[in-house]
């Protein structure tokens, strides 16, 4: 079960170079490719977005006995490539994107395990805790400036987003709703600037006296130093990034609802120097189930798709307007897809052996579709892309060598589990 993860570094040991920690590309014939993006916005459709109802549409089904897509399909900017009719704003921008229609893995039973796999690129081993892709990017690239963190999550803090063996400093700052703001960074609502000044002045006096009583004590010095760094992070330079009112009302409106506003915030964060922003699309009040459209969750799925369409298309255009699209890789990912067949309640079950993801910008050779599924979207018929390959593609786009070894103590662990980037997106 856990073997992929444990085996992977063995494979690099096989190549005989992992222990020294230097580059260890598996196939010496192929040079290491390096993309040009420097940040990543990772849009997470938790619950398992139906590929056949979004990025890989098929012939219409009927919501009951007849399998197929739930919606009509529309043409896009890529000739002969169609999307679901509710992605109508994204369709004309699809030449800025890459569709991967052949993602696959073998966990369709459990959301948490599958979501963990798509975030860490590995199954759990029990001997070490694997880091999330956001933590790896944070570890490899760091933030662009010391006034912002490297990794921000809009969604729930949980294991799949955690830094694992990379340690707490490669964790994230998170918020669960735009309205509540980032946990820990924002002053409590009842503390105004006067109180904040008073607080910091008192703390300054206490710290100074304590340091005087403990001269030449490295742990005391370190504690006072991180306090200063911390208050810098809580300073206006970073917090202003969260102030969406600084954007024009028309832009805010075109991004749409809560998810769109999160995407707008993601753009602002990337602009400020954050490297990896994960934005969760978990607006389950729209249809109850979110993207996990069993039974009646299917009925209002189009509301989710329309929200996604609005936010994603605006994000792509907005990044372009700000000349950030080439440097920013946008990823739309989910833990698995859903079958073309309908369940007895008119919704869909889980489907991991073939599903889709979308990449945009990031300096990739966009306008391509990678892989294909059969007539109904059940089975991959061309160019399967594994989760490690998917991760390797993202890392490569960000200029990170997916075969590089990180170290969990003495143990070398390659960034991806023997993943190979999708070459045609780079050369």
């Amino acid at each position: 079960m856990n073997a992929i993860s444990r085996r992977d570094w063995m494979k690099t040991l096989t190549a005989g170079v992992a222990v020294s920690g230097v580059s260890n590309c598996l196939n010496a014939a192929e040079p290491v490719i390096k993309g040009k993006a420097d940040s990543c916005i990772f849009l997470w459709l938790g619950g398992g977005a139906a590929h056949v109802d979004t990025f890989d549409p098929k012939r219409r089904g009927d919501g009951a006995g007849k399998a197929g897509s739930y919606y009509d399909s529309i043409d896009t900017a890529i000739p002969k490539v169609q999307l679901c009719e509710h992605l109508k704003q994204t369709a004309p921008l699809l030449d800025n994107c890459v569709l991967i229609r052949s993602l696959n893995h073998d966990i369709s039973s459990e959301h948490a395990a599958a979501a963990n796999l798509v975030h860490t690129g590995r199954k759990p081993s029990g001997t070490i805790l694997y880091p999330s892709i956001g933590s790896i990017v944070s570890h490899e690239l760091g933030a662009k400036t010391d006034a912002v963190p490297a990794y921000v999550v809009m969604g729930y803090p949980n294991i799949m987003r955690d830094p694992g063996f990379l340690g707490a400093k490669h964790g994230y700052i998170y918020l669960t709703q735009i309205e509540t703001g980032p946990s820990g960074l924002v002053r409590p609502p009842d503390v105004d600037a006067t109180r904040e000044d008073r607080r910091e002045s008192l703390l300054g006096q206490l710290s100074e006296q304590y340091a005087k009583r403990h001269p030449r004590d490295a742990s005391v010095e370190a504690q006072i130093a991180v306090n200063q760094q911390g208050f810098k992070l809580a300073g206006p330079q970073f917090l202003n990034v969260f102030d969406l009112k600084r954007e024009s009302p028309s832009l805010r409106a075109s991004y749409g609802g809560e998810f769109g506003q999160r995407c707008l915030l993601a753009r602002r964060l990337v602009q400020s120097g954050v490297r990896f922003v994960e934005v969760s699309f978990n607006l389950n009040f729209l249809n109850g189930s979110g993207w996990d459209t069993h039974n009646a969750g299917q009925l209002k799925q189009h509301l989710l798709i329309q929200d996604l369409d609005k936010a994603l298309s605006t994000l792509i255009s907005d990044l372009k307007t700000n000349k950030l699209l080439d440097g920013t890789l946008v990823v739309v990912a989910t833990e698995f897809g859903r079958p073309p067949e309908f369940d007895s309640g008119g919704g869909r079950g889980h489907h991991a052996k073939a599903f889709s993801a979308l990449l945009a910008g990031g300096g990739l050779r966009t306008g391509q579709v990678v892989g294909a599924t059969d007539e109904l979207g059940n089975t991959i018929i061309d160019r399967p892309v594994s989760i490690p390959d998917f991760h390797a593609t993202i890392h490569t786009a960000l200029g990170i060598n997916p075969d590089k070894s990180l170290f969990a103590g003495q143990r070398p662990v390659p960034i991806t589990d023997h993943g190979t980037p999708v070459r045609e997106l780079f050369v």
Partner: protein
Amino acid sequence: MTYLTRIHASLAVLLGAAALLSAAPFPIQVELFENVPKGTELKPLGLQPTASYQEPAFAFVRIPARYSPNALPLDRSTPYVLRAIYERSFPAGEYQFRLRARGAAVFSIDDAEVARTKPQPPNTSGDDPVPPPPSTEKLIVRAAPYPHQDSVVRQKLTAGLHRFTLVAVVGGKGLMPTPGELAVSYGMPGQLENLLGPDGSPRLLDEEWDAYVAQAQKRHDLDDMQRRRAMSADVVEAWNQRHQAVRQWLAGTPAVPLPPVNGSLPLYNEVDRFLNAKLEKAGVAPAPLTSDLDFLRRVSLDATGLIPTAAEVRAYLADAPATRRGHAIDRLVNSPGWADHWVSYWQDVLAENPGILKPDLNNTGPFRWWLYQSFTDGLPFDRMVTELVEMEGSKTLGGPAGFAQATLNDSPMAAKADILAQAFLGQKLGCARCHDAPFHPFKQKDLFSMGALLNGKPLTLPSTSTVPVRPGGRRPAVTISLKAGESIAPEWPFQNLIAHANVGPQPASLPSYSSIPTRDELAALIVDPQNDRFAQVAVNRIWKYYMGEGIVEPVDDWSRVQPSHPELLQFLAREFVAGGYDIKRVARLIFNSHAYQRQSVATSTGADAAARVFAGPVRRRMTAEELVDSLHLSAGKRFLCEPMNLNPAGDRPATQFLDMGTPERTWQMTALSNERDRPALALPMAQSLIDMMTTFGWRQSRQNATTIRDDAPSPMQTLILANGNLATRLIRLSDESAFTGLALQNLPLSKLVEESYLRVFSRLPDQQEQQVFENLLAPAYANRKVSGVQASSARMKSDNRVSWSNHLSSEATLIRMEEERNQRMGEAPTGRLTAEFRTRYEDALWAMFNSPEFVLLP
């Protein structure tokens, strides 16, 4: 005092406490019946009850734990049946009775059925609707929590004695085996009701119900403890005999010679003698003795994970200077916090990793409860380890069987062998999982043969636990000596520690309770006194816990062992064994040494054993648990947290949704497991606690064993303590805050500052500090009180209408999102202090809690 007499002494204290709690015998006679034939559950006739006890009133929120002969928690049959019988007189008249139950129940008066509830169906849905909120207008009594049923009947009673009987089915296939809010209440028709019981029983109002439940929990905790101790007295005796035999054996082996010292350095006990010998030789001066108050704060945190209370500081200062330190040590190692604090440590080391939502990512059972009871009951360490290796008891209720679980792991017993070996033998086998260890003297077979001992039969090497060599690929740099599919027989792999053949009936056979003989064989080898590695690893862990550095480093990997003080290590191990494997005895030796009582030294000396002299304990920051628990203690506020249970409706089984109860200390927190990223599964109050804990190094997911956490200071720690939801709540001067209470007393301002310092820093302020805070508070102090305002006892509450069964509804999502926003607003400030004074005082407290002095140990 021997182990046994100590148990008796503490039992006597507890029995005294019990007598207070149950001054009058409780009138409701309760019986539990298990394995009741299907269809006859509501008429358990002719069956022997498996438990009989009494309750003060007709509310059955908690049932007595069931224990194995060696006091491990066990499951009851599911379903089981609860029958409660009670007789009392009523004046003639018409009464209203309310039967409240989640599942099937029948309430009878004078043996005639008057009310009935339906069986609860198991539910696999998540799409159920959220029930409407209870209408406050019509509500006279506490609302029935979703999905409880109320069956309300009016009944005319004749004057005189009546007999009341409740029979209820608890749990069942696909259901949680918990009673929920099973209760019967009565009143005049249309009026407020009391729980059925003697006059004066609690009224069915939220506040009185909550108080009753809190009391019932305490009462049952105590009762469970007494019962398990009484019923396992012969097990205690068997271990005691084994320890007698071990002591006799030990007496025949040479004692550790005490090294000569020249007497120039302070020496409190034998520990110092060993250290001084090296200090003298190295010409290093030890750090000076720490002050009495610094010592108290440090030893309180080290022994119990809590800072001392103001009252404890005062009592300590009132004690004679010559004896106050010793008395404090005695008090602390016998306080309840001792168990709390050790549980956190072993949760990490043993990778305790329960999942409250469909266990999957290398989850275990919640064996924290067994750890806690073991430390509370003062079990000798070799017994604890034996019981852990035996892996018996309930998997979901917290027995060591939960240790055996490793969901999604391809070879759970190999994983457990790795954890046990590093925890108790300093043998790190993890790198031997897929191949022979490249940096350790272990072969893959060593790990799997130990795993096979746990398995009770040969283990097969899974194909996922090896390294495939691809055709044409290079030979791996590691040695692969086993093939996938190969069967590995149970065998003790550490012949160098103790030869298998040496283990016999001497010095005494192991009191064992395993259903798998090879587990006992393994336990016997690990805890055998001739295996001196076991005792040495244990005392080295204790030493490191208190002194900051081990005599051997790292504590969990002795493959290149080079003790800094080999004789001290032997001495402590011998003391440990001679004392019946009592951790407290070793802790006392350390706490009472001059070495421990010295001022902290700034940094550790690192890996170089030769340079390690223990000039003083290494300064450390509070752990996440110490910080969060101490903040609560200082602020005088209780934990505010939802129940750790995503299935409060109880309509899914315990194997999928654990009910971890409502935490009162940090070690009781659990990962929220919201990888689904669903707002309806969020627990915002718990999240505020977890945010601070994870920022300070607590691991919400313990997929692997760890002894040393990542404790590097980070700016996020500053921020979460400065602005996080939990810190904001604890600093807020609400009516629950102890600081609000202080401010409302008629103290002179100087005294308020002193008291605040005592509560936060365990010391009095110096003149300058006194001045700073008096200057801050003085302008608003005289007129700080607002008259005519009552204290509010309102606390934030979690909407209990949301459960797994309806979490996919839009409304459940909106409810929890609203709670998140409320959580951010914090709790209401007291109205009894002016805003001007309150904000000044809050800012003072904020500065104190955020100062390095609070988080760094003296």
